[in-house]
């Protein structure tokens, strides 16, 4: 039968969870009574103000650059660590456990917290944002890549062993060719995420188009805000398209 007792229980639990969450988040549709205000507010966004377009484009490139640099440096550092954090390639149990601990520690700190720390310690600007993104991505990519290593086919590794290759060479030559399309695919996903993160980091002074959006918003320059938002949307879509194109090419 389609309906089992267990399913009814699940539905009841879900309804209770939804109710509690609505209470906690003050979910209230009656607030839409003031919907007219929203329309008034949004109408101030138009027409767009194109006068600062060149600066905005420059800031978007800064955002792209810091997202790329942060995630790519993260990848470079994560790669070797992921080999020590995979059970089949770790040099010893002790190193395996400590690398895993370091990676999960790095992952557990949200980028916004890292951003607040680095921005305070190193003064405002994109550089601390790069570090925040890099730090977090070492943790994330390190874990993902170590899982790829663990699930790679042991056959080629055994063949390299039988050939008499040194362990390091055996790992490099038998594992990297197997996993690199997936590594790149993970990387592009993290790059896309880094762009979104860098927008948020811009709000706390991390530079780029995010910081410009936040400043325009705070100073009520809504006709600039609309153009900022449009540029951000175009940028995110472009990177998404580019990423999926590259992923298709390599897999």
């Amino acid at each position, binding site marked *: 039968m389609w309906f089992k007792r267990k399913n009814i229980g699940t539905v009841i639990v879900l309804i209770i969870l939804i109710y509690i969450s609505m209470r906690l988040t003050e979910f209230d549709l009656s607030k839409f009574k003031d919907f007219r205000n929203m329309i008034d507010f949004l109408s101030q966004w138009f027409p767009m103000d194109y006068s600062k377009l060149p600066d905005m484009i420059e800031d978007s490139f800064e955002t792209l650059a810091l997202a790329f640099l942060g995630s790519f440096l993260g990848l470079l550092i994560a790669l070797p660590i992921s080999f020590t954090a995979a059970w089949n390639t770790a040099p010893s149990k002790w190193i395996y456990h400590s690398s895993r601990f370091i990676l999960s520690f790095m992952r557990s700190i949200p980028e916004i917290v890292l951003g607040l720390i680095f921005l305070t310690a190193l003064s405002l600007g994109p550089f601390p944002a790069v570090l925040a993104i890099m730090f977090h991505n070492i943790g994330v990519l390190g874990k993902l890549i170590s899982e790829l290593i663990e699930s790679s*086919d042991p*056959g*080629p590794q*055994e*063949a*390299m*062993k*039988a*050939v*008499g*290759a*040194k*362990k390091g*060479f*055996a790992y*490099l*030559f*038998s594992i990297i*060719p*197997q996993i*690199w*399309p997936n590594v790149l695919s993970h990387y592009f996903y993290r790059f896309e995420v880094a762009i979104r993160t860098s927008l948020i980091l811009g709000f706390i002074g991390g530079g780029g188009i995010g910081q410009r959006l936040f400043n325009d918003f705070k100073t009520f320059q809504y006709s600039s805000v609309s153009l900022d938002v449009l540029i951000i949307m175009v940028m995110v879509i472009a990177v998404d398209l580019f990423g999926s194109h590259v992923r298709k090419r390599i897999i």
Partner: protein
Amino acid sequence: MLEIKDLSVRFQGNKDDALSHINLSFEKGEFVCILGKSGAGKSTFIRCLNGLQKPTTGEVYWNNHSLFDMNEEQLRKIRREMGMIFQHFNLVPRLTVMQNVLTGTFGYRSTFKNLLGLFSAEEINRAKETIEDVGLTDQINRKVELLSGGQKQRVGIARALLQQPKVFLGDEPVSSLDPGTSNHIFNLIQDIHNQHQLLTIINVHDVHLAKRYATRLIALKDGKMIFDGRPEEFDEEKFHVTYHAASNQLDELPVH
């Protein structure tokens, strides 16, 4: 040249030996086929010969040197003298035929040249010749995952040959190939065996194939050696014992 003394292997958690008190000795020029049904211990045995598997007790001597007294570096030097081919080929995916064959030189170098993918002109020429010997010159720059099973095993053979081995080991190298292709591969192995005067030791499922090529047959059952002799001595009865009889009948049968 290769001597096995009282070799036993028991895997953790198992109550029976996967290999039990094996004593054997092999000389250059022998073409040995090892028979036995699934689980008899064939893979475990062949993996002990180049130290991929450590025995629970017993020894393997290579030219009177004990493999299991060696450190990793010494063992590496022994392994590169033993070419090995596998049932599932164990090629490195996404690399070309040429690149896969060149990995056969890895045992001989330990410098960063390996990392950069640099090979000497001599190595590249030798790889080309070897690829020609196994008949894959027209596939040389193709990725290995695009090849047929028989072609993949030829790449495996070429990789092993590039090691310039003295011993050729095979763990059911034709078990995932059709009969026609299996014959071609065995012909190739036999040619190489004769040309380089190797010691060849191969696990096989197919008794007819083994009888056709081997100069010596060994049969394993439940980890014990139940036959060691010339192919023509392996008669109907021994075939039956190897593949069908229950293990409790074993004791009544003559063991070579």
